[in-house]
C-alpha cells in the first residue's frame, strides 16, 4: 500500500464517521469513538506492517522516509489515545457543551481529532514550504475548534480566543517567513532552498531574517520561549484531551517540521553558525523559563503546560547541538518525542480520569489518589518519574541522549542550564506525587470525598500499556531506535 494511502484512509474514516454522526440520531456517541479508535488502529497496523519500503518521494513534496513513518505513528497513536481519553472525559464535555444531558456535539469531538491526525501525518512527510503551510494550517484550525469546544466553559472559550489570536499571529509571521525564504532562494522546496542558500553571495541577513520568521511560526507550535506565551493559559483552559493532543501530537509534528526546515539552513554555510547560536539561546531560555516557572504552580494542567515548555527546551538543546551528521540530533529528538508520547499521555489520561470523577485539575484534587485508586496513582507516579527523567523510565533516556549531545558539541553552559532545569523538575513533578500519596483523600475537593474511582476495562488496559511502555523503553531503549 502506497504511503499516501494512509492519510486518505484516515480522512475517509473521518468522513464516514461524520456521516454516521449526522444521520444516526439515537445510540451512544461512544460507538463513534470506538469505531474511530478501531479504524485508526487499523491504519496504525498498516503503517507498521502494510506500507511500502521507505525512501520514496511523491510529487516531489511528499516524503516517505523512516522519520515520516515514525512521526505518522506518533500522530496516530496520540490521536487514538486522545479519543480514548475523550470517552472518559465525556461527562465533563456534556456539562459544558449542552444544557440538557444530550450527547450532541460529542460526535464532532470524537471526529475532529481524526482530521487533525490527517494533518499531522501530512506534516510528518511535508517536504516543501507550501505543503508545510497547508498541513500546518489544517491542524491549527482544527485545534482552534477543539480548544474552544466546551462552549459554555469560559476557560475553554478564553483559551480558544487566545490560541486563535496568537496562532493567527504566528501564522502571519510564518507566511512572511516563507515569503522571504522564497524571496531569497526563489524556491519553496526545501532541497531547492538549500541550494539557494548555499550560493548566497553578499549579506546573509535576508536569509537569516527569513529563518527568524520561520522560527517564530514553528517555535509557536513547539512552545519555545519566547513564543510559548499561549501555552499555559491554553493548556489550562482547553479540555484535557485536547491539551494532551496539543502537547504531544502538535508538538511532535512541529518538531519534525522544524527539523526538516532547519536542515537546509544548518547545512548552508552562511546561515549555519548564527542559526545554531540562536537555537542554543532559545533552548536555554526555554529550559529556564519552563522549569523555573513550573515550580510554584498549583494547577496540575498548568504545571504540565510548563513542563511541556521545559521539554521543548530539552529537545531544542538536541537540535542546537552542532554535531557533524545531524542524524544524531534527529535520532535524539525522535526518541525523546517517542518517550514523551508515552509519559505525557499517561499523565493526561489520569488527569482526565481524576477530573471526570469529581476531582479537579488543581493539585488538591489529586490528594489521596493512592487510596482512591492505586493504579491511577501508580501510573501518575511512573509518568511523573519519567517526565522528571528518573532512570529506568523512557524519559531518562531522552534527557540522557540530550545531555550526551550537548557534551559532544561542547555546549557546557547549555548542559549546565539543562541540569539546573532537570533538577527543578524533580521538585514540581514530585509535588504531585506528594499530594497523591502523602495527603489524605478526604481533602479531595468537590463531591464524594474519598470515594474510589472506578475505571472501565479499556481504560485500565490503556493505562497499563502506557505504564509498561514507559518502563520498558526505559530499560530497553534499543527497540524504539530500531523503528526509525
Amino acid at each position: 500500500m502506497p504511503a499516501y494511502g494512509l492519510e486518505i484512509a484516515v480522512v475517509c474514516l473521518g468522513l464516514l464517521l461524520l456521516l454516521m454522526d449526522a444521520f444516526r440520531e439515537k445510540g451512544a456517541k461512544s460507538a463513534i469513538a470506538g469505531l474511530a479508535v478501531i479504524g485508526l488502529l487499523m491504519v496504525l497496523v498498516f503503517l507498521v506492517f502494510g506500507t511500502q519500503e521507505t525512501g520514496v518521494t511523491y510529487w516531489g513534496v511528499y516524503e516517505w522516509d523512516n522519520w515520516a513513518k515514525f512521526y505518522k505513528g506518533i500522530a496516530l497513536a496520540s490521536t487514538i489515545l486522545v479519543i480514548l481519553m475523550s470517552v472518559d472525559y465525556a461527562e465533563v464535555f456534556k456539562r459544558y457543551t449542552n444544557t440538557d444531558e444530550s450527547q450532541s456535539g460529542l460526535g464532532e469531538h470524537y471526529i475532529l481529532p481524526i482530521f487533525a491526525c490527517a494533518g499531522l501525518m501530512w506534516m510528518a512527510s511535508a517536504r516543501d514550504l507550501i505543503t508545510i503551510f497547508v498541513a500546518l494550517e489544517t491542524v491549527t484550525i482544527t485545534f482552534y475548534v477543539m480548544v474552544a469546544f466546551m462552549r459554555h466553559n469560559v476557560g475553554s472559550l478564553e483559551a480558544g480566543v487566545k490560541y486563535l489570536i496568537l496562532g493567527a499571529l504566528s501564522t502571519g509571521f510564518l507566511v512572511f517567513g516563507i515569503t522571504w525564504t522564497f524571496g531569497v532562494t526563489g524556491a519553496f522546496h526545501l532541497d531547492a532552498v538549500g541550494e539557494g542558500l548555499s550560493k548566497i553571495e553578499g549579506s546573509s541577513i535576508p536569509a537569516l531574517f527569513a529563518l527568524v520568521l520561520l522560527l517564530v511560526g514553528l517555535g509557536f507550535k513547539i512552545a519555545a520561549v519566547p513564543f510559548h506565551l499561549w501555552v499555559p493559559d491554553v493548556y489550562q483552559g482547553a479540555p484535557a484531551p485536547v491539551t494532551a493532543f496539543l502537547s504531544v501530537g502538535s508538538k511532535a509534528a512541529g518538531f519534525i517540521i522544524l527539523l526538516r526546515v532547519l536542515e537546509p539552513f544548518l547545512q548552508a554555510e552562511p546561515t549555519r553558525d548564527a542559526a545554531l547560536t540562536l537555537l542554543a539561546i532559545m533552548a536555554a531560555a526555554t529550559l529556564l523559563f519552563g522549569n523555573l516557572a513550573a515550580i510554584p504552580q498549583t494547577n496540575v494542567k498548568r504545571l504540565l503546560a510548563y513542563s511541556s515548555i521545559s521539554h521543548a527546551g530539552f529537545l531544542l538543546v538536541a537540535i542546537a547541538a552542532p554535531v557533524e551528521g545531524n542524524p544524531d540530533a534527529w535520532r535524539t529528538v525522535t526518541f525523546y518525542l517517542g518517550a514523551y508520547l508515552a509519559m505525557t499521555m499517561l499523565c493526561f489520561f489520569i488527569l482526565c480520569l481524576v477530573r471526570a470523577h469529581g476531582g479537579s485539575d488543581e493539585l488538591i484534587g489529586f490528594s489521596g489518589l493512592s487510596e482512591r485508586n492505586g493504579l491511577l496513582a501508580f501510573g501518575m507516579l511512573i509518568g511523573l518519574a519519567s517526565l522528571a527523567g528518573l532512570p529506568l523510565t523512557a524519559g531518562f533516556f531522552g534527557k540522557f541522549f540530550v545531555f550526551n549531545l550537548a557534551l559532544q558539541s561542547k555546549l557546557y553552559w547549555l548542559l549546565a542550564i539543562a541540569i539546573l532545569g532537570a533538577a527543578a523538575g524533580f521538585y514540581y513533578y514530585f509535588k504531585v506525587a506528594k499530594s497523591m500519596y502523602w495527603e489524605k483523600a478526604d481533602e479531595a475537593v468537590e463531591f464524594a470525598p474519598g470515594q474510589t474511582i472506578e475505571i472501565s476495562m479499556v481504560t485500565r488496559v490503556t493505562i497499563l500499556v502506557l505504564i509498561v511502555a514507559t518502563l520498558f523503553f526505559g530499560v530497553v531503549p534499543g527497540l524504539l531506535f530500531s523503528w526509525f
Partner: protein
Amino acid sequence: MLGVITLLSPLITAAIIALGLRRVPEAASKLSVLSAIVGFVCSLIMLIWSCNPVEPLVWATAGDFSLKIGLLSDDKLAQGMLFIVTFVGLLVHVFSLGYMKDDPGKARYYMGLSLFMFSMTGIVLADNFAMMFIFWELVGVSSYLLIGHWFMKDSAADAANKAFMVNRIGDFGFMAGILLLFAITGSLGFEEIRTAIENSPPAQGLLIVATLCIFCGAVGKSAQFPLHVWLPDAMEGPTPVSALIHAATMVAAGVYMMVRVIFLVEAAPMAGEIIAYIGGGTALLAALMATQQDDIKKVLAYSTLSQLGYMVMAVGLVAKHPGGDYAGHAAFFHLYTHAFFKALLFLGSGAIIYACHHEQNIWKMGGLFRRMPKVAITFAIGTAALMGFPFVTSGFWSKEIILAEAYGTPVLFWIGVGTASLTAFYMTRLFLIVFFGEPRTDHAAHAKDPGAVMTRPLMILAVPSLIAASGLVYKWFGIHPPHHADGHATFILGASIGALIFGVSLGFFLYKGKKKEPIGFALFRDKFYIDEIYIGMVRVCQDGVAYVAKALDQIVVDSLAVLGSARLARGVGNLFRFTQVGNLQGYAFLFGGGVLVAIILLFSFAR
C-alpha cells in the same frame, strides 16, 4: 606456644562467659580463675625455661603490606612483665572470689577480668606497634568495663567514661607517634624500627616529635601529668580491679612500653629530658595530693601516680646515660617491685573496705590493728616497701637505683628525694589513722579479718614485696643488681634514708591519735584544682566549639547555601511566572518583543 596459650586462654574464657555463662556466675568465676592459673603456670615456665618462638600470624594484608600478630618469645623483659601480670592477676582473681561473692554482676565482672588478662598479655607479648596498639585499646575497653562495673552509679559511669576519654587522648598521640615512626622507618616491628634507626639515624626533630607522641600513649595509660586525672576517679571500680589494673599492671603498661622502645629515647635525648621532667613532676604533685586525701583508695591511687612518676622519670633519664639500657631497667625494676607491694596495699585496703562494709573514708576507721591483724601486718609490709624501708624491702632497692640515675641532674634528684619523704609521710598518716587509735564508727568497731580466700593472697604478695630484689629474681628478670659503682652511693643512701625518717616522723607527730584532719590544706586536698580547670577547658574547647560548629552548619551550610538556592529558584520561577499576565495583548506584545530580540540576536551573529 606457651605464649599463645597464655594469650588465648583468658580470651576463650571471656568468650565462653559472654556467650554462655552469664546466668551462672559461679561457674563463670571458677572458669576465669582456672584460666588465670593456666596463664600463671605458662608464664612461670616461660620465665624459668624460655620457650620456643611461634610463627607470627598475619592479621590483615593489603597487597604487599601486612599487619602481623607476633609474640615475643625469648625476651626477658616480656617474660618478667608477663610473670607479674599473671601472678598478680591470679591472686586478684582469687581475692575477688571473696570480695565479689554476692555481687549480682559477678559473671560480667569475671568476663571483664579475663578480657583484661587477655589484652594485658597481648600488650606484653606484642612484638610490633600495630599489635600493641590493638591490645592497648582492648586494655582500655576492659578497664572501662571494670571501672563501670556498677554502671548504675552515676559516679562509676562517669569515672569509666572519664578514664576512657583521657586514655583516648593519650592514644591519639600514641597513634600519631606510631604513624610517624612508620613513615620514618617504614616498619612497625620494634626490632626493625630499632635497627632502622641505628643504621640510618633520621632527622632529629621529627624523631623527637615521634618519640614524644609515643610517650603520649604512656602518659595516658600510666596517668602521668597532665593526663593523670582519670586514675583517682577510676577507684570507683571494685577494689580488686584497682589493685590489678590501676596499680599493678595496666597503668604500668605505659612504662613497659617506653622501656620496650627505650632506644627511641636514647636516639632522641631531647625527648628524654622532657619525659624525665614530666615523670618527676608527676611524682611530686601526686605525692603532695596524696597527703590530704581521706579516701583510703584515693591515697593509694595518688601514691601509685607518684610511683609511676618515678618510673617515667627513670625512663627519661636514659638520655643522661647514653649507651647501655641501665636506666630502662631501673624503671622496669621499680615497676615490678611496685607491682607487688602496690597490689598488696590495694588488696589490703580492699579487705579493710570489705570488712568495714564498703566504708572507704579513713577517718571512719581506726583501731583496726587489733581487730584484723593479718591484714594489718601484710599492709604494714606493703607500706614499708612503698616507703622504701631500707635493705629489707624491695621498694627500697628499686628506688635506690632511680635516685642513683637521677643523681646527675640535681633538680630531678631532689624531686625524687622529696617525693620519697612525702611518700613516707602520707603512708604513715594513712597507717596511723586506719589501724591505730579508737575505732570511730561501729562498722570499724566490728571489723574482723576476712576469710582465707582474701587473706591468703595478701600473705603471698607480702613475700615478693620483701624479697623481690634478691639475686634469683635478678637472674630471672635479667636485671643488673643495684651496684653503686659511682662514689656518691653513700650520699644517695643517706639522702633516701634521711627522707624516709623525716617523712615518717613528721607523719607520726602530726597524726598520732588524731580523730580528724589536723591540717587542712585545700590546695592539695583539691588536687591543685586540675579537674576543675579541665572541666572548664572541656566546656570551652569542646562544647563551645561544638556549639559554634553546629550553628555554622545550620546557618551557613544549611540555611544559606541549601535553602538559599531553593528559595532563589522559586523566586526566579515566580518572576518568570508573572510574565504570563493572562492578557491577550500582553502576550501579543511579548510575542512581538520576542521576535525583535530574536532578529536582533541573529543579526548580531550574522557575518
